[in-house]
C-alpha cells in the first residue's frame, strides 16, 4: 500500500495521523509545492515579525520521520492520471494506491485597473516573506478587503508601526459573518486603535507614482506605498481542472471524505463539504475542518471507517482587544428566531440564532469562555426552546442542559460514539 498526500497543511497532517492510527507500516509520500514543514495558516501574520517566526509551525521537524513519511517538498504537481493512478510532476511521476488531495486554497487577487506594480497577498509563507521584505522601507500600507485576513493583517501591520489604510467594500469588517452588530463593534475598535478604516469604499484602480502608489477610490484618491490584497481565498484545484474529478466551489467529498473517483480522497480548504446547517455543499476554509477532514480521510484510506462530523463555519479570533467566537449561521433567515444580548459597559455581546427550536448559530463577543458548550449544542442539534434565555443571559453553563442529555454527551465523548 502506498499513500500519497498532496499538500502539507493541517489536512495533510491530519491524514498522516489518521493513516498511522491504523497502518503503522505502509509507505506515505507527501508532496508539497512549498519548501517548508507544515505551518499554521491562522498564525501566518507572525512571519512578519522576526521573533515570532518559530511560533507558526504546526508540527516540529521530527514529525515526518517519527511517522515515517517521505516528503517531496518544493515540487509542483502538474496533473493526475486517475486511471493509471499516477501523479505527474514537472520532472517526475509518482504512483499511488490511495491519494489524498489537500492542496488547500490560494489567494484571490483581483487585478487592479491600471496598476502594473506588485499587489501583495498574504495566504502562505512565500507571500508573507515577500511582503515582509518589501515592508522594510515602507510605512503606509493599503490593505484591501475587510475579511478575516485583511483585518488581522491590518492589526498586525499597525502594531508594527505602519500606517494602515483598510479599505472595505461593505459597510463593516467581517461582513461575511452576517452580523451587523459585530461589524459595528469591530469597526469602532479598529478605528479607535488608529487604523484608517474606509468603509463602503470601492477601488476603481491604481497607479504607480515613483516609489508610491496612488490608489483610486470612487470619491477620492489616496497615496500609499504598498497594496496588500486580501480578497479571500479559493480552492487550489488547478492541477485537476481537466480531469474527471468533480469540482464545484471546491472538490466535492462525501462524509467519508471520498471524491467521486475511487481511492481518491480530498480534505481541507480545497474541498466542498456538506454543511448541515445550510443543507448544501460549501467550502469552509477553517483549520478544525481541515485537520478533522484529513484525519477522517486518513482513517478511511487505511481501511478504517470514519465519518466526518457535521461541518459548519466557526472561528475564534481577536481583533485588537476584542475577543470573539462565532459559530454556525449568523445571517438569519426570516423563519429563524434571533436573540441578542449586549452589555455596552463590559463590551459583551451574545447572539443566538434558533431555527425550529434548535440552535444553529451563535456569536460570543467579549466573554468567550466555555463557547464549546454552545458549539456542541449546535453540533448535536439539541432543542434549546426551554433554555434559550439562560444560554443568552447567564454564564455559559453545562448544567443548563437536562441531566439525561448531559449524561449522553459525556458518555459519547468518553467513548467516542457520535
Amino acid at each position, binding site marked *: 500500500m502506498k499513500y500519497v498526500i498532496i499538500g502539507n497543511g493541517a489536512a495533510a497532517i491530519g491524514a498522516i495521523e489518521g493513516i498511522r492510527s491504523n497502518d503503522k507500516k505502509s509507505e506515505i509520500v507527501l508532496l508539497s509545492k512549498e519548501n517548508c514543514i507544515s505551518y499554521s495558516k491562522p498564525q501566518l501574520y507572525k512571519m512578519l515579525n522576526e521573533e515570532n517566526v518559530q511560533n507558526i509551525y504546526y508540527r516540529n521537524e521530527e514529525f515526518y520521520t517519527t511517522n515515517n513519511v517521505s516528503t517531496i517538498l518544493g515540487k509542483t504537481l502538474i496533473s493526475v492520471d486517475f486511471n493509471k493512478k499516477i501523479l505527474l510532476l514537472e520532472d517526475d511521476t509518482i504512483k499511488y494506491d490511495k491519494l489524498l488531495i489537500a492542496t488547500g486554497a490560494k489567494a484571490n487577487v483581483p487585478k487592479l485597473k491600471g496598476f502594473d506594480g506588485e499587489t501583495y497577498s498574504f495566504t502562505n509563507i512565500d507571500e508573507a516573506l515577500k511582503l515582509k521584505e518589501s515592508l522594510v522601507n515602507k510605512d503606509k500600507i493599503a490593505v484591501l478587503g475587510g475579511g478575516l485576513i485583511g483585518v488581522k493583517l491590518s492589526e498586525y501591520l499597525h502594531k508594527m508601526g505602519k500606517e494602515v489604510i483598510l479599505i472595505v467594500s461593505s459597510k463593516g469588517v467581517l461582513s461575511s459573518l452576517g452580523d451587523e452588530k459585530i461589524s459595528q463593534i469591530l469597526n469602532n475598535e479598529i478605528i479607535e486603535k488608529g487604523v484608517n478604516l474606509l468603509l463602503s469604499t470601492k477601488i476603481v484602480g491604481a497607479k504607480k507614482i515613483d516609489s508610491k502608489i496612488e490608489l483610486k477610490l470612487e470619491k477620492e484618491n489616496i497615496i500609499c506605498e504598498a497594496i496588500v490584497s486580501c480578497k479571500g481565498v479559493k480552492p487550489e484545484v488547478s492541477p485537476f481542472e481537466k480531469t474527471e474529478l468533480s469540482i464545484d466551489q471546491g472538490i466535492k467529498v462525501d462524509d467519508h471524505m471520498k471524491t467521486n473517483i475511487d481511492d481518491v480522497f480530498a480534505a481541507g480548504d480545497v474541498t466542498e463539504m456538506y454543511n448541515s446547517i445550510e443543507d448544501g455543499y460549501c467550502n469552509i476554509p477553517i483549520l*478544525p475542518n481541515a485537520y478533522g477532514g484529513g484525519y477522517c480521510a486518513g482513517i478511511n484510506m487505511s481501511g478504517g471507517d470514519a465519518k466526518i462530523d457535521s461541518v459548519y463555519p466557526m472561528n475564534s479570533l481577536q481583533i485588537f482587544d476584542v475577543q470573539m467566537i462565532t459559530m454556525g449561521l449568523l445571517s438569519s433567515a426570516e423563519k429563524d428566531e434571533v436573540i441578542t444580548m449586549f452589555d455596552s459597559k463590559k463590551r459583551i455581546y451574545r447572539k443566538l440564532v434558533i431555527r425550529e427550536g434548535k440552535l444553529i448559530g451563535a456569536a460570543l463577543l467579549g466573554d468567550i469562555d466555555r463557547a*464549546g458548550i454552545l458549539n456542541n449544542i449546535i453540533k448535536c442539534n439539541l432543542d434549546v426552546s426551554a433554555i434559550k434565555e439562560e444560554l443568552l443571559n447567564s454564564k455559559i453553563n453545562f448544567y443548563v442542559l437536562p441531566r439525561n442529555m448531559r449524561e449522553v454527551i459525556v458518555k459519547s465523548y*468518553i467513548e467516542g460514539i457520535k
Partner: protein
Amino acid sequence: MKRRIICNEDFCIGCRLCEVHCNVKHSKSRDIILAYKYEKEKEPSRMTFEQKEQVCGSIVCMNCKDPLCIKACSMGAIKIEDGTVIIDTDRCVGCWMCVMVCPFGAIKRGDKKAFKCDHCHDEEVPICVLNCPNKALMYEAD
C-alpha cells in the same frame, strides 16, 4: 493510562473544595494559606463548578476518546500523552480554538495560554478527588 474525573451530581454538595484544592495544588507554594492570601499570580480554577437550581457538580477535562480540541488547535499544541490530553504551553499561542470546541467548557483561558485540568498526573489520585468530602468526584483510569 487514561484518567478521568467524573462528578456524580447526586452527591455533589456544592462545597467547591475541589476548586480550592486544585488551586492550591497548582500554586507555587502548594500551601493553602500562602496560595490564597500571599501569592500574587493566580490562575483561574481548572475546575468548573456548575450549578443549576438545586443541582450542582464540577466539570473538568474528560479526556475524550476523540478530542475535538486536538483537531481544532491551530498550533498542534494539544496532544494525547499516556491517554491524557495535554496542552503544550510552549506551543500554545492563545488562539482559543480549543475553547471554541470543548463540549464541556473545560479549557480555560489563562494569560495568553490555554490550560485545563492535568488530571494531576504526578499524583496517584487527582487532588480534587482525594479531597472531595462526599466522594462525588470519582476517578477512573483505564
